[in-house]
């Protein structure tokens, strides 16, 4: 028997239970699913399938509210796209001299106040005209009218792979609640004179734990 869910209070209650204030509208067609999110889903799904009925009880090898693929506590992982990309002027493929700065903006309004962040990982992809001997240095500062203090500096040996920078504890106090949006100014400078690189993609991988939904591991019954 098939039973389509009637819209109305039942569906609203189920959405509420799923932590969704309302059913998201149709999928944003332009948004491909990032590979990191598929990897995390498949890893979790595989574990849950293995921990299912008539096998080892879930508590034995699957820690509830822990993101195994990232090694941090959490029950919600969000891949947040950079809103600032649309407003950035097109850059020359390679420029010498003073390298540009970029402003990235992450809309975090979907995060509920009760959620505790356990990881906020900046993921950046750059395009560079050429490799540079000494590598690069990434700096991250709060964006605003007057340039804020640099919150994070990180050596970047190569631009061939995504550049990842953990913001929690640097650009974001660990026990602070999640801001409604995060605006940062990024700069990438070559250590030796070289052409500047171009920022081709920025995103934020945010892991949070909602303590209301994560009960402690159920003890196997004696």
């Amino acid at each position: 028997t098939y039973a389509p869910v009637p819209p109305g209070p039942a569906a609203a209650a189920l959405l509420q239970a799923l932590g969704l204030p309302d059913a998201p509208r149709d999928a944003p067609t332009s948004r491909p699913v990032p590979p990191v999110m598929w990897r995390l889903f498949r890893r979790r799904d595989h574990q849950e399938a293995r921990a299912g009925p008539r096998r080892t009880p879930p508590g034995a090898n699957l820690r509830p509210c822990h993101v195994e693929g990232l090694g941090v506590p959490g029950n919600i992982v969000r891949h947040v796209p950079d809103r600032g990309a649309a407003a950035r002027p097109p850059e020359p493929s390679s420029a010498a001299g003073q390298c540009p700065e970029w402003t990235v903006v992450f809309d975090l309004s979907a995060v509920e106040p009760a959620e505790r962040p356990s990881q906020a990982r900046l993921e950046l992809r750059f395009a560079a005209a050429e490799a540079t001997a000494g590598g690069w240095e990434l700096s991250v500062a709060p964006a605003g009218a007057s340039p804020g203090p640099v919150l994070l500096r990180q050596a970047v040996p190569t631009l061939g792979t995504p550049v990842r920078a953990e913001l929690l504890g640097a650009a974001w106090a660990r026990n602070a609640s999640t801001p409604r949006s995060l605006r940062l100014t990024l700069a990438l400078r070559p250590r030796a004179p070289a052409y500047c690189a171009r920022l081709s993609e920025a995103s934020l991988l945010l892991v949070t734990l909602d303590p209301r939904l994560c009960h402690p591991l159920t003890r196997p019954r004696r």
Partner: protein
Amino acid sequence: EAEPAVGGSSGGACRARRLYVSFREVGWHRWVIAPRGFLANYCQGKCALPAAMSEPGGAPALNHAVLRALMHAAAPGAAGLPCCVPARLSPISVLFFDNSDNVVLRHYEDMVVDECGCR
């Protein structure tokens, strides 16, 4: 999509029955990326004696449930039978788009009924 209950309204002894939730059927397939659905299952069945005496997997039944089943056998009008409810549940994870165009992986505890018991 549910397994039809057999043998009248209670459908035999208390046990987990198949219930597949298809996100397409509930109209969520456009924003739920994966899975396409999942086996939620549900509990149904009688908790009269002797069913109330044994739990799945050989675990001892709850004394209170046995007492209630005994009471019901001795004096049906006194107290109802114990209820057939989930005794062990599993989580699932759902990958979906939210209204801010984020791709979200959310872990939900207690979504799949693995075992039922009389309580």
